[in-house]
């Protein structure tokens, strides 16, 4: 049964692992050089007190590859779900070979267990290889902590840690279940892809924020943290203020201006536009007065966020969620595989 | 080794056809004492018929004392029917020919001759009753 599973799977396996392997080799080749470049930059600007802007050139010159690699890791579950999971059982129905293989001296459940188990493990291994190689290569870039690009941010969270292994198992099990239900490969692939993409969107927007109670930070708006004014147009009504607050590396969920009663404001009085950074040093006094007036009126900035140290707990939670979904889907497959 | 032929439209059951063809082969000297009949597997592969049919035919021949199975080796011919060569029955043939000439002269057509022969044959057979089969 193991031989048969491999024999049927080997082309798909070699394709995906071939690509991942080639990428891993390329990363292994270029990785050390990038680490040295980064170390040199750090040494040049004097160690721990480096200003992030010193690394901007370094970061943005490799931005394309960096983003592409992250996209690759995020795509692995979809690939294994669509190309390994969906055809697993549906191909047998399409070609009629279920009448051949289920009549050999192997009960259906054992057949299913070996196929799901072996190819599922391969799916997890593929995700593991991808995330390990990319995480290792990206260490210098992750360390530059460009604002909003921390590990906790949705863009990067799925491409680091180990939750992607859970997602790969889930996508694979989903594909297999779709193939078993739909019995046609191409529709099963389409359905699997659609659901995996939907989950990919739903997870960070609707589930992950609630994995723990978000932390809350309320501060007075100062010249240091005020970034700008949110207006409906030049000279139009001011909606709120933009302030860069919140601890570094945190995942900001909401960032709003509230009034003295604690309510989120819809509009702010027109004089607030004086609080923005002045063009000439002479305007600084106007800004200071505006800010004092803002504070006196009770306006503050409130941020809800998940701090960076929640990265590993969240990874664990998500892996557990996807792991359970995978088991449920696999269980469903075992139920449905019985003769009708 | 003889090969069998099946005539599906002949109205004679397949197993009887095999029996008849073995007898014919024995008569004509194509099969001699000690020869081995084709294995059931060979016959069945060649004719695409039920193995039990061939088995039945070989059993019938065994019952007639013409062949005998040797376990593990096959089915072997015990005796031939070679003394029943056509020449031994020349007088019979001459009589039959004379009768046929008479029948034609009497105005009987082929079908009537056959019908007359077969009905007389059947009646005679029935009257012969439980007498041993004359090979």
């Amino acid at each position, binding site marked *: 049964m193991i031989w048969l599973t491999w024999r049927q799977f080997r082309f798909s396996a070699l394709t995906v692992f071939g690509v991942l392997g080639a990428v891993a080799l390329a990363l292994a080749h270029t990785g050390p050089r990038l680490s040295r470049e980064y170390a040199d930059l750090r040494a040049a600007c004097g160690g721990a007190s480096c200003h992030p802007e010193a690394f901007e050139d370094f970061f943005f010159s490799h931005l394309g590859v960096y983003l592409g690699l992250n996209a690759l890791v995020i795509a692995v579950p979809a690939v294994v779900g669509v190309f390994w999971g969906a055809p697993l059982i549906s191909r047998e129905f399409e070609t009629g*070979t279920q*009448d051949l293989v289920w009549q050999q001296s192997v009960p*259906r459940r054992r057949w299913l267990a070996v196929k799901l188990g072996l190819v599922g493990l391969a799916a997890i291994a593929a995700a593991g290889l991808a995330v390990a190689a990319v995480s290792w290569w990206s260490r210098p870039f992750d360390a530059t902590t460009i604002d909003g690009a921390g590990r906790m941010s949705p863009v990067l969270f799925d491409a680091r840690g180990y939750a992607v292994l859970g997602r790969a198992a889930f996508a694979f099990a989903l594909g297999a279940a779709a193939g078993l239900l739909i019995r046609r490969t191409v529709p099963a692939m389409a359905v699997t892809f659609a659901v995996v993409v939907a989950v990919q969107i739903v997870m960070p927007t609707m589930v992950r924020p609630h994995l723990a109670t978000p932390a809350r930070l309320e501060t007075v708006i100062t010249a240091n943290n005020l970034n700008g004014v949110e207006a409906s147009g030049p000279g139009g009504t001011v909606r709120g203020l933009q302030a860069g607050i919140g601890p570094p590396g945190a995942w900001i969920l909401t960032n709003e201006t509230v009034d003295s009663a604690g309510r989120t404001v819809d509009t702010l009085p027109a004089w607030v536009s004086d609080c923005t950074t002045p063009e000439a040093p002479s305007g600084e006094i106007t800004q200071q007065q505006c800010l004092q007036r803002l504070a006196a009126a009770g306006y503050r900035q409130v941020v809800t966020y998940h701090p960076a140290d929640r990265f590993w707990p969240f990874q664990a939670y998500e892996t557990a969620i996807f792991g359970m979904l995978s088991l449920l889907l696999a269980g469903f497959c075992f139920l449905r595989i019985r003769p009708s | 080794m003889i090969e069998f032929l099946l005539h*599906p439209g002949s109205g004679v059951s397949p197993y009887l056809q095999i029996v008849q063809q073995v007898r014919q082969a024995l008569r004509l000297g194509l099969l001699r004492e000690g020869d081995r009949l084709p294995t059931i597997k060979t016959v*069945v*592969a060649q004719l*695409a018929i*039920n193995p*039990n049919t061939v088995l039945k035919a070989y059993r019938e021949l065994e019952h007639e004392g013409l062949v005998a199975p040797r376990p593990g080796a096959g089915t072997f011919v015990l005796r031939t029917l070679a003394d029943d060569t056509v020449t031994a029955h020349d007088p019979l043939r001459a009589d039959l020919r004379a009768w046929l000439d008479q029948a034609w002269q009497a105005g009987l057509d082929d079908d009537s001759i056959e019908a007359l022969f077969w009905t007389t044959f059947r009646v005679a057979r029935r009257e012969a009753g439980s007498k041993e089969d004359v090979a």
Partner: protein
Amino acid sequence: MTAVVRAQGLGKRYGRRRALSECTVDIPAGRVVGLVGPNGAGKTTLLRLAVGQLTPTTGSIEVLGGRPAADAAQLSRVGYVAQSTPVYSGLTVEEHLMLGDRLNPRWDMRIARDRIESAGLDSRQRAGRLSGGQRAQLALALAVAKRPDLLILDEPVSALDPLARREFLSGLMESAADTGASVVVSSHVVGDLERICDYLMILVASRVRLAGDIDELLASHHQLIGPRRDPTTLPGAEVITARHTERQTTLLVRAQRPVDDPAWTVAEIGLEDLVLAYMKADAASLSPMEVLR
């Protein structure tokens, strides 16, 4: 002899459609059984129930004394060739034999290779490139080499040309002679079944109409031709079909003892005509269908 397939009130329903109804049969072992009937009669359904690809809606079926496809041991005792003679088109012939070897404890590679050789298959050829007849031979080899006690084939030759058909049946019979396995073959071509079968089952409109030893069936069915008679019942005989012309009545009857009534001319019936008669007989019951000319 023990029964190789035993069904009691077996039925299968898909929604409102009855594919098989109240099927009660006792198929003896060691035979080549022909299953015949028109398309859609339920032959495939019955065979798939026997191999465990379907489960019954009503009734039960027992194969070789066990529930179909219950476990590996049961699966190893039954060989199945589905109507589509499925093969893995990406695997070579040789790889199919390896598949059989690894997945069946009773696999005999020698038998498999003999069958492949007799069929003239190239073991390095991909199964997807085989002709219909060659595929059927490969499927047969796979079913036979696992040394089953029962071989079930669903219309294995209906898509084959006459030569391929003959070669397949030869191969099948050769295997049957070799292994002594029981065989159940379904077909809608009576001529093929006549050559190879010694037991017959007729299936029409989801019901079994007739089942029995072919020799016994042919001996007990008679065609009676006589002057036109309207009451179409006969003492001691069951009338299967009746046909009337102005002056003549033709009956097909089933009787244990020969019909003595001198008014009737008795003729024997061939297997094909027998099957046709049962297929034409009334669907609801076995009462005769009168066709007026």
